[in-house]
C-alpha cells in the first residue's frame, strides 16, 4: 500500500487541506487560550473589587444588627455573587447565596487569597477566601473570614459553544481549502497535461517534434530538457539505423550484381577448368568484400551504440605508432614514402581499437601520399587531452568534402571503388573508435597538406608530467 495517492493533484489538495486545518487548529488554540485568560482576568478584577467593597464596608462598621442589611444593599444587582462571612469561631455572621459554596471552600484550613474554581450543582464558580478586619459588637477589632464566589457558568458555556463552533469551522475550512487546492493544483498542472498530450503524439515517424521548453514552468523545465535530449538521441539513433540499412543495401548491390552476372555468364557455356577457377576466384574476391563490409558496418554500429567493451588499459600512442610503422614500412617503402613519428602520450583505451583507428589513418595517409614525401605522426599532450596528428603531402581534399570524409561509404574519388579497396569505411571506423573513447577527430587540408588530428582523453594515472 502506498501511503500517498499517485495523483499529484490529489496529493497537493490533501496536503493543503491538512496544512490549513493544522494552521486553523493552532490559531484557535492560541486565541481560545487568550480569550480564556482575559475572562479570568476580568473575573479576578471583579473578585478583587468585591473584596475591597466588603473590606471597606466592614472597616467602617461594627457587627451590628444592620450590617447584613447594608451588605445586602451593597450587593443588590450582583446576582452572580455569593458571600459568606465567618467570625473567628467559625460562625457564619453573614451569607448571601451561601449554597454556592461547597465543603472544600468552607473549610477553615483553605488557603487564603488564592483564586480557585469549583463546580457545584452543575454550575461553575470562581472565588477566594480572605480575611477582613472589622469591629465586633463591642467595637473591638476582630478578624473575619470572607468567602467570595462568582458564578461564571455563563462564561464557561459561552467558551464551550465558541469552541464547538470553531471546530466545525475548521472542519469546513479544511474541506474548502482542499477544494481550492484541488482547483489550484489542477490548473497549476495544466502544462504537464499539455506536455503529456504532445508526448502522446510522438511516434517513430514524428521524432522530430520537441516539447516547448520556453512554455514549460520552471519546475518541469529540466524534465522537458531531459525529455527533449532523449528525443534527440532517439531521433539520431533512428536516423542512423535507417541510414545504415539504406547504406548497406546500396553498397551490397554492386558486389552482388557482379557475382550474379559473372556466375550466370560462366554457367551459360561449358568452359575449361581454368575458366571456372577464374570465375570462382573472382567470386571469392567479391564475397570477401561483402564479408568485410558487413563486419565493418557491424563494428561501426556497435561502436555507435556503445556496445563494444571499453577497456581501461593504458595505451602508449607512440608504441602503437611504432608498431604500425613497422607494419606499413614495406608498403611505404614501395611508394617511396617515409613514415616518421615524434612525441609521447598515453591514453586509457582499448589497445586493439586504438591500433585499428591509427592503422586506418596511416593507410589512408599512405594511399594519398606523393612519392618521395613523408607521413608525419606527431603526438603531444595538451591540457587533459592527448593529440595525435597524421600529416601527409598529396592532393588537397576539397573543403566541401572535408566534412563528409568521416561518413560511411564516403570516397574521395569514386573510381577507387573499382579496385576492390576498402569500401570507404576506414575513416568512419576511426571516428567511431575515437568517439567511443570520448575523443574527437578533425581534419584539415590545405595546399597539399592533409592533417588528421585525434584528441583523446589522457590516461589518468600514467600521464607523464605535462610538457
Amino acid at each position, binding site marked *: 500500500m502506498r501511503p500517498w495517492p499517485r495523483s499529484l493533484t490529489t496529493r497537493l489538495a490533501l496536503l493543503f487541506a491538512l496544512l490549513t486545518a493544522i494552521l486553523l487548529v493552532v490559531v484557535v488554540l492560541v486565541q481560545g487560550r487568550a480569550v480564556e485568560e482575559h475572562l479570568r482576568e476580568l473575573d479576578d478584577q471583579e473578585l478583587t473589587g468585591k473584596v475591597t467593597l466588603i473590606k471597606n464596608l466592614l472597616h467602617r462598621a461594627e457587627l451590628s444588627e444592620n450590617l447584613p442589611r447594608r451588605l445586602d444593599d451593597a450587593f443588590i444587582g450582583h446576582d452572580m455573587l455569593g458571600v459568606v462571612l465567618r467570625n473567628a469561631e467559625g460562625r457564619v455572621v453573614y451569607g448571601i447565596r451561601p449554597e454556592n459554596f461547597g465543603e472544600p471552600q468552607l473549610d477553615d484550613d483553605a488557603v487564603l487569597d488564592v483564586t480557585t474554581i469549583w463546580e457545584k450543582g452543575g454550575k461553575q464558580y470562581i472565588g477566594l477566601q480572605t480575611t477582613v478586619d472589622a469591629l465586633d459588637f463591642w467595637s473591638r477589632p476582630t478578624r473575619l473570614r470572607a468567602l467570595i464566589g462568582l458564578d461564571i457558568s455563563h462564561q464557561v458555556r459561552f467558551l464551550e459553544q465558541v469552541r464547538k463552533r470553531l471546530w466545525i469551522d475548521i472542519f469546513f475550512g479544511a474541506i474548502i481549502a482542499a477544494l481550492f487546492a484541488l482547483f489550484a493544483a489542477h490548473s497549476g498542472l495544466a502544462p504537464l497535461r499539455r506536455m503529456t498530450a504532445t508526448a502522446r503524439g510522438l511516434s517513430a515517424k514524428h521524432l522530430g517534434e520537441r516539447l516547448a521548453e520556453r512554455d514549460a514552468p520552471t519546475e518541469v523545465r529540466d524534465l522537458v530538457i531531459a525529455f527533449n535530449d532523449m528525443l534527440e538521441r532517439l531521433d539520431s539513433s533512428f536516423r542512423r539505423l535507417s541510414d545504415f540499412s539504406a547504406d548497406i543495401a546500396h553498397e551490397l548491390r554492386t558486389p552482388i550484381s557482379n557475382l550474379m552476372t559473372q556466375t550466370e555468364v560462366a554457367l551459360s557455356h561449358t568452359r575449361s577448368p581454368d575458366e571456372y577457377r577464374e570465375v570462382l576466384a573472382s567470386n*571469392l574476391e567479391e564475397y570477401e568484400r*561483402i564479408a568485410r563490409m558487413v*563486419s*565493418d558496418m557491424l563494428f561501426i554500429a556497435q561502436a555507435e551504440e556503445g556496445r563494444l567493451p571499453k577497456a581501461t588499459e593504458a595505451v602508449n600512442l607512440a608504441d602503437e605508432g611504432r608498431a604500425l610503422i613497422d*607494419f606499413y614500412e614495406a608498403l611505404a617503402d614501395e611508394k617511396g614514402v617515409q613514415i616518421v613519428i615524434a612525441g609521447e602520450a598515453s591514453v586509457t583505451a582499448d589497445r586493439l581499437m586504438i591500433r585499428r583507428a591509427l*592503422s586506418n589513418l596511416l593507410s589512408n595517409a599512405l594511399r594519398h601520399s606523393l612519392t618521395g614525401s613523408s607521413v608525419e605522426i606527431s603526438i603531444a599532450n595538451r591540457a587533459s587531452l592527448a593529440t595525435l596528428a597524421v600529416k601527409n603531402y598529396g592532393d588537397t581534399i576539397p573543403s566541401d568534402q572535408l566534412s563528409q570524409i568521416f561518413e560511411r561509404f564516403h570516397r574521395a574519388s569514386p573510381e577507387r571503388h573499382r579496385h576492390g579497396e*576498402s569500401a570507404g569505411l576506414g575513416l568512419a571506423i576511426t571516428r567511431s573508435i575515437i568517439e567511443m573513447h570520448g575523443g574527437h577527430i578533425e581534419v584539415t587540408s590545405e595546399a597539399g597538406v592533409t592533417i588528421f588530428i585525434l584528441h583523446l582523453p589522457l590516461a589518468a594515472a600514467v600521464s607523464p608530467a605535462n610538457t
Partner: protein
Amino acid sequence: MKILIVEDEPKMGDYLRKGLLEAGFVVDLARDGLDGLHLALSGDYDLIVLDVMLPSLDGWGVLKTVRRSGHEMPVLFLTARDGVEDRVRGLELGADDYLVKPFAFSELLARVRTLLRRGRSQEVETLRAADLELDLLRRRVSRAGVRIDLTAKEFALLELLLRRQGQVLPRSLIASQVWDMNFDSDTNVIDVAVRRLRVKVDEPFEPKVIRTVRGMGYVLEVPESP
C-alpha cells in the same frame, strides 16, 4: 586426425566437411545439437567444429555437456553474432577458439591446424623447404647454401610460412601472426611484404616455393617435380 562438425546449415555443413576431408582429415557431420552431442560423446574426435545456433540443443548446451563428461578435445565454435558476450561465454564454457560468420575457409583451416598442433610442440631448430633453410636458433636464413639477410619481420613471415608449409595462409592470419594486427587491416601491406620476401628468398632460385592463391592468401610449398 578426426574432426566432428556440428552445423545445421546444409550448404555450410557440406562444404565444411568437403573442405576438411580434402585437407586430409577424417570428418563426421552432425546436423543438429543432439546428434552432435551423441557423436561427440561416443566417437573419439581430435577436434569439434561447433555452430552455436543449432536446432534441438544449441552449441552452448553441447559444449557444456561435452566438457562436463570429461572430454578435453579442442572446440572451435562458429557464431553469426559478433557479440562480445557470445565470445566470452563460449570461451568461458571451455571452447578453445571461435570464428565469426562469414569467415574464410582458409582461416578456419589455419585455426583448426593451430588447435590440433597445440600441446604437441616438437621444437625444431631448423625449418626446411627444398634447399631453403631457416635456422631458428641463430636466426639465419640460407638458400642453396647462400646466406640471405632478412629483416626481423621478413624472418618472422618466412618462419610462419615454413611452419605452416603446404597450408594456405590468409592475409588476415599473416597480419595477426607477424605484426599482431588483429583486425581487418590494409591487406596491401601483406602483399608487399610477401613480394619483398620473394625477391630475397625465391626469385634468384629454383624452384619457387612461395605461391599466391588467388582470393585466399599465400602458401609455401615445394612443387612436385614434373
